């Protein structure tokens, strides 16, 4: 098939980390790129899945004890830790307050913007199996649960970042 020269530039981000600041970096780049005419795909895997869980809090979810403990320890959006100086979860809240005061987009605002900018959210099938996470546990914007071949298809001819 012939490639169209007018095809949009594409950016794929592998959202591996569940750290608050790294999620902030991923969504800042993603929304900035989408607003600048790029096609953007976010592939969530392992700890990155915590960013897009429907339940933002901790829950003992899973079929066996280790998975239940894992899911409780990780929690959802409200439990994302700062990668440094987390201070038992106080720092992400503090940072959000500072950002709001300085008119800098917060992580919640960036995620909402990503949805409005029609950024594609996809999630890793294997990581979801490991962590006993089902599609219905993730926000509705996640349009597909995919394996590596599908991700590679998205990443073809694209800038790809691993965060």
């Amino acid at each position, binding site marked *: 098939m012939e490639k169209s020269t007018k095809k949009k530039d594409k950016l794929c981000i592998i959202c591996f980390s569940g750290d608050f600041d790294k999620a902030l970096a991923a969504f*800042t780049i993603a*929304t*900035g790129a*989408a*607003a*600048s*005419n790029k096609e953007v795909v976010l592939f969530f895997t392992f700890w990155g899945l915590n960013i897009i869980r429907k339940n933002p809090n901790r829950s003992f979810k899973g079929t066996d004890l280790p998975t239940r403990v894992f899911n409780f320890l990780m929690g959802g959006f409200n439990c994302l830790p700062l990668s440094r100086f987390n201070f038992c979860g106080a720092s992400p809240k503090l940072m959000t307050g500072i950002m709001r005061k*300085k*008119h*800098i*987009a917060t992580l919640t*605002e*960036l995620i909402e*913007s990503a949805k*409005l*900018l029609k950024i594609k959210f996809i999630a890793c099938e294997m990581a979801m199996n490991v962590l006993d996470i089902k599609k219905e546990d993730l926000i509705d914007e996640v349009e597909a649960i995919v394996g590596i071949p599908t991700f590679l298809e998205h990443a073809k001819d694209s800038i790809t970042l691993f965060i």
Partner: protein
Amino acid sequence: MKYELDVTAESCPMTYIKTRLQLDKLKSGDILEVLVNPGEPLKSIPDSAQEAGYKILEIIPKGEKHLIIIQK
């Protein structure tokens, strides 16, 4: 129809997100006037609007700020 948007209180990437979301709402012939700070927004907003097929009608200096007039 003419729309106005002031992004001078925003910083990256919200400057670009708000402009993009407002541009997406325009119908053919509509105009958007965006007030921006000097520096990157002044360069990047017209560039990416043009790349997406919008027309830059005028860029008017307003003191330190600039008003970018964009038409769909």
